């Protein structure tokens, strides 16, 4: 599988906040990151998209110097990232995949603690803590202990702890896992707000819809490698699929399916579970051609829909497997 790299207008020419070169990380025999390359520009919401086990969290942990790696270079804000580079760490905010808060502290105490690791001045810290509470909508839960919070509120607390000190660069590692839709929307809107306020965001997820609606640039990862990078439009332009047709058909004769497959430009047509799926470039005429063939073959069909390609289609075409896998 070849690496495809696109370059869009977002942040073009801006200085890179993160630069990763040829990073290799092994866990015994398993190669978690295989000559991983990454460049994130100032002001971006950069999405790392990939299935579970693709190496997203490992990449972030290596970038944060939490994990030692065998080979490669990581620089943040133009400086080599080492575990003792505290000046760089001061400019970073991290929201871990697991909710990392003290169970013994209340919401406000937790946020104050993490903010206090970056901001020693008490008055300034109090203002920042209050701001983070308001930002994440936790005003009504200030005195609550984490065990009294729902999953969505816990995630919001996790985010508040990571962003309270107003970092320039924020790593958000799957912040919406196991979160209800209301909290998810709240979180996503919050991330956009952070970005509007000037923060560069690195966002990992295996939810393609989230990444698609949130990120300015996206890297698709698989097996520790970056398989494609670009804006969502660029990524979709990298594949042949321009449009995907789905039609509900009770019975589709083999000769009719063969005729559809034979149409010039239709590069994939499958029939399973009473459903016909066809992929072709987005030129506006293939859908009519397919419906004509069905009519001529006296094939009764129900609901027909046509949609543009998703990131899952991008992933499917590049790797040969579904992103959901």
């Amino acid at each position: 599988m070849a690496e495809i790299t696109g370059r869009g207008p977002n942040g073009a020419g801006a200085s890179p906040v993160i630069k990763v070169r040829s990073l290799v990380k092994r866990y015994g025999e398993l190669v978690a990151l295989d000559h991983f390359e990454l460049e994130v520009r100032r002001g971006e919401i950069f999405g790392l998209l990939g299935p579970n086990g693709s190496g997203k969290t490992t990449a972030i942990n290596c970038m944060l110097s939490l994990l030692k790696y065998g080979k490669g270079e990581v620089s943040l804000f133009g400086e080599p990232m080492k575990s003792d580079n505290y000046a760089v760490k001061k400019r970073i905010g991290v929201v871990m995949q697991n909710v990392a808060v003290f169970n013994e502290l209340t919401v406000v105490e937790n946020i104050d603690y993490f903010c206090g690791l970056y901001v020693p001045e008490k008055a300034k810290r109090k203002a920042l803590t209050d701001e983070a509470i308001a930002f994440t909508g936790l005003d009504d839960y200030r005195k609550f202990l984490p065990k009294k919070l729902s999953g969505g509120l816990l995630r919001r607390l996790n985010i508040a702890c990571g962003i309270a000190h107003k970092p320039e660069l924020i790593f958000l590692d799957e912040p919406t896992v196991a979160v209800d839709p209301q909290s998810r929307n709240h979180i996503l809107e919050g991330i956009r707000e952070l970005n509007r306020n000037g923060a560069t965001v690195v966002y990992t997820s295996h939810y393609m819809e989230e990444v698609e609606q949130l990120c300015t640039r996206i890297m698709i990862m698989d097996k520790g490698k970056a398989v494609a990078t670009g804006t969502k439009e660029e990524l979709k332009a990298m594949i042949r699929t321009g449009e995907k047709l789905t039609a509900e058909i009770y019975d589709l004769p083999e000769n009719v399916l063969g005729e559809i497959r034979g149409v010039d430009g239709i590069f994939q047509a499958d029939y399973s579970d009473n459903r016909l799926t066809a992929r072709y470039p987005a030129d506006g005429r293939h859908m009519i051609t397919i419906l004509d063939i069905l009519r001529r073959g006296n094939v009764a069909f129900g609901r027909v829909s046509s949609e543009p390609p998703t990131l899952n289609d991008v992933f499917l075409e590049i790797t040969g497997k579904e992103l959901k896998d």
Partner: protein
Amino acid sequence: MKVFKTCNTIIKRRITAMALYFLIFLALTVIMPILTADQHTLDFFEMKPNFTVINRDGDTPLSEGLAAYLGARGNKVVLDDRLETLQDASFYRATDYIIILPQGFRDAFFSGGTVKIKTVATTDSAKGFYVDMLINQYLNQARFYGSPDGMGEEALAAAVIRDLSAETRVETKRFGAGAPISTGFLIYNRMLSYMVIILIILCVSNITSAFRRPDMRMRNLCSPLKPRSMSLQQILCGVLVSAAVWVSLTVLGFIMYGSELAAADRRTVGLILLNTLVITLLALSVASLVSSFIRSANSQNAAANFVSLGLCFLGGVFVPLDLFGEGLLMASRFTPVYWYSTALDNIFALTSFEWGVMAPIWQAMLTQLIFTAAFFCLALVIGKHINQSEKSFSSVQTELDA
């Protein structure tokens, strides 16, 4: 000092559980001296056995003198010289001791022949031994005078009673300037070691389990705070908590036994306090080591109880070391609390402050300090290993685990 303050907050949140242990300890230290009071009493009272003299030799000054001598030290019970009467009286414990002087007793005694006296004592009674001893004393003293020729039998008997009634004046002198310290305070100090160990383990493990949680460690490592500073602030909190525990228990001891301690020799009190300070340091080192292995809040109480109870049991806190078998005693010597108990026992048994007497106390305290240093070193090595190991992050669910 954000980490330090957070550590304090974490401990404050668990104060209720610790207060429960404190109350149990308080109850035990009040109850145990009361329960063990009889075993440790030093008061003396004279025992007066009931005895019966059956004189078949007729009234002689020797036998009358014996009866009078015994009568001064016991209660004379008059019984008929009939077998059934004597059996009933002995069975129903109307008398503790029956002495039967046979016919010819006086003649045989003064002629230097063998004198056979029949005696019946109630079984399992110390009174029998006591009366045996009194009879032997009387007869041996009478034999000391030999023949009554010259002084007369009555005068001999009177001389024997006079001799045996002579008392030796005994003056008790205590070393040092102070009054003795009660056994209650000894028990309090024994129990204090358990309390110190369990409280400090609970406090330190609360801190470490909160900060060593893999996800929390990762999160903290992302911050600009140096790990060394973070560790030092946690250690500082541990030291402060240990000091607070020591001060609280010391003050409590002074409240409970203040009047005794005020009258006691200050050097003895100082040694007791020094010993408790040493066990507090030891408890801190044990807590550092134990908390290295505690992975969750749920296992804290179990680990704290297991370690503190185990160490204190083997160290002779709950059961006196005198009751230990040789094997158990040998094993207990390898536990630090044994040396605390030994030092404490030696302090309470002090007869002077000379080097020879004090040496075992210093040796026991030094051994505790060696254990303390060893535990701290071990805890540091394990802590460093955990910090450097990527495996310590393994419980954080990453994509690769999924």
